[in-house]
């Protein structure tokens, strides 16, 4: 009994002394913190994932309170958190154009020349390290790695060329990372439909003509028509999506292209929906899915 009382008493004494020291220290040493920081922290998901580019939610809240960053960085919270942050901070939100993938290749199987007889592992990643699968060293290989990785069933193969279903696409960028030839790019969609350069071949026109029926030959006819939008870069025309206003008329420039490699991508128009439904019905039958049990794809990983 005495031991118990002594123990309790001693711990009480220690606690009192420690508390007294800390109270005095706090009074003299405490750093004033911006009160908005805590309030902003309460609005954040506290996942501390670092997706915003800061070490954690607290650091992001701090940066926001100091006005060093923008309110749309939180990927976990998404638009609702952005709206809540903007409301708290009293700033107005301008809607951002959503980023969606476009495919810089428009050559279907019949358009690709110089195809070899490839009987290896049927993935783009494997075919990409093998020479001579097809003449074009830049364009789509058509084995559908992008289809395999898509978690939203938003990309399908149509005669060896991926077609994005923009109604389903969430813009996660999985296909962009999966493509071994880097022909898929995320671009801002300021309008429902944008023009895309359907080629990524940097070779001179003569070489392109030998490997593809629809590749950009670098004639720069289109770049002369829309000099502020289209630039020639390394034998290939490049569309500057930051300059796009959404009011351009692409019909003349598309008609001008001798190879027809300027294509329109985006939300399907009414008469496209039937075609898209047809493509989806034909091609998604048995896509090679990654197994849920292991991170190693049985096709990619051969010990």
């Amino acid at each position, binding site marked *: 009994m005495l031991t118990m009382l*002594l123990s309790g008493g*001693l*711990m009480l004494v220690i606690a009192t002394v*420690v508390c007294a020291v800390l109270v005095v*220290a706090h009074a003299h*040493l*405490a*750093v004033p913190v911006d009160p908005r920081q805590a309030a902003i922290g309460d609005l954040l998901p506290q996942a501390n994932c670092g997706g915003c580019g800061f*070490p954690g939610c607290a650091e992001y809240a701090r940066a926001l309170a100091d006005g060093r960053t923008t309110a749309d960085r939180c990927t976990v919270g998404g638009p609702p958190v952005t709206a809540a942050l903007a409301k708290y901070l009293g700033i107005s939100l301008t809607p951002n154009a959503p980023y969606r993938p476009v495919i810089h290749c428009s050559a279907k199987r019949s358009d690709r020349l110089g195809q070899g007889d490839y009987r290896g592992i049927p993935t783009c990643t494997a075919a990409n390290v093998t020479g001579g699968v097809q003449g074009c060293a830049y364009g789509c290989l058509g084995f559908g790695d992008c289809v395999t990785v898509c978690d939203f069933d938003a990309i399908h193969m149509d005669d060896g060329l991926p077609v994005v279903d923009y109604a389903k696409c969430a813009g996660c960028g999985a296909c962009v990372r999966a493509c071994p030839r880097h022909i898929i790019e995320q671009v801002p969609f300021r309008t429902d439909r944008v023009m895309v350069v359907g080629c990524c071949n940097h070779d001179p026109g003569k070489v392109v003509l030998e490997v593809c029926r629809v590749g950009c030959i670098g004639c720069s006819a289109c770049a002369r028509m829309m000099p502020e939008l289209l630039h020639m870069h390394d034998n290939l025309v490049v569309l500057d999506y930051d300059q796009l206003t959404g009011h351009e008329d692409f019909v003349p420039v598309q008609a001008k292209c001798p190879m027809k490699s300027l294509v329109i991508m985006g939300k399907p128009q009414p008469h496209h929906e039937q075609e898209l439904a047809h493509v989806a019905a034909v091609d998604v039958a048995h896509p090679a899915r990654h197994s849920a049990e292991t991170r190693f794809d049985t096709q990619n990983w051969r010990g």
Partner: protein
Amino acid sequence: MLDLLLIGLSAALINNFVLSYFMGICPFLGVSRRLDSAFGMGAAVTFVMTISGGLTFLLQQYALIPLGLQILQYVAFIFVIAGTVQFVELYVQRFFEPLYRAFGVYLPMITTNCAVLGVCLLVWSKSYNTLAQALTFSFFGGVGFTLAIVIMAGLRESIDFADVPAPFRGTPIALFVAAILSMAFAGFAGMGSQ
């Protein structure tokens, strides 16, 4: 005087807390990415170790032993350590703001750093019986921790430029380096009688 020197040398090099007792591994791996924050962490741990080593020695000597309450050793020591860490946290936040942010969660975690509690308990299991001995042991224990974490941070900064095989990148190679480092420190084993 000679025995204090021996105690210091033993705590810092021969029986290094990290590399031969395997205590304080968490901050050793967590805060050893950059040299400057590693040194700051070492300094903070040394400070906490010295203060709490001295305080717990006095607590044990003048309260626990006379009252026959050695059973309270662990809980009372943790209490003192936690209080000291709170104090250090306030101090660092006030005067070393960038260091405070570099520490992040690791500063409050000194509270549960077993090297600090280890020092307080080892003072008794090694039967040091003067305050000078206890303070020397805990201060040089902290110096040894700082030495280990600074060497480790230097190595890891160099590893950033090395071509490490993919499966070993990050924590695995850090653990390999720590193991080789502790083998190097094992060369001191058996020196001195402490």
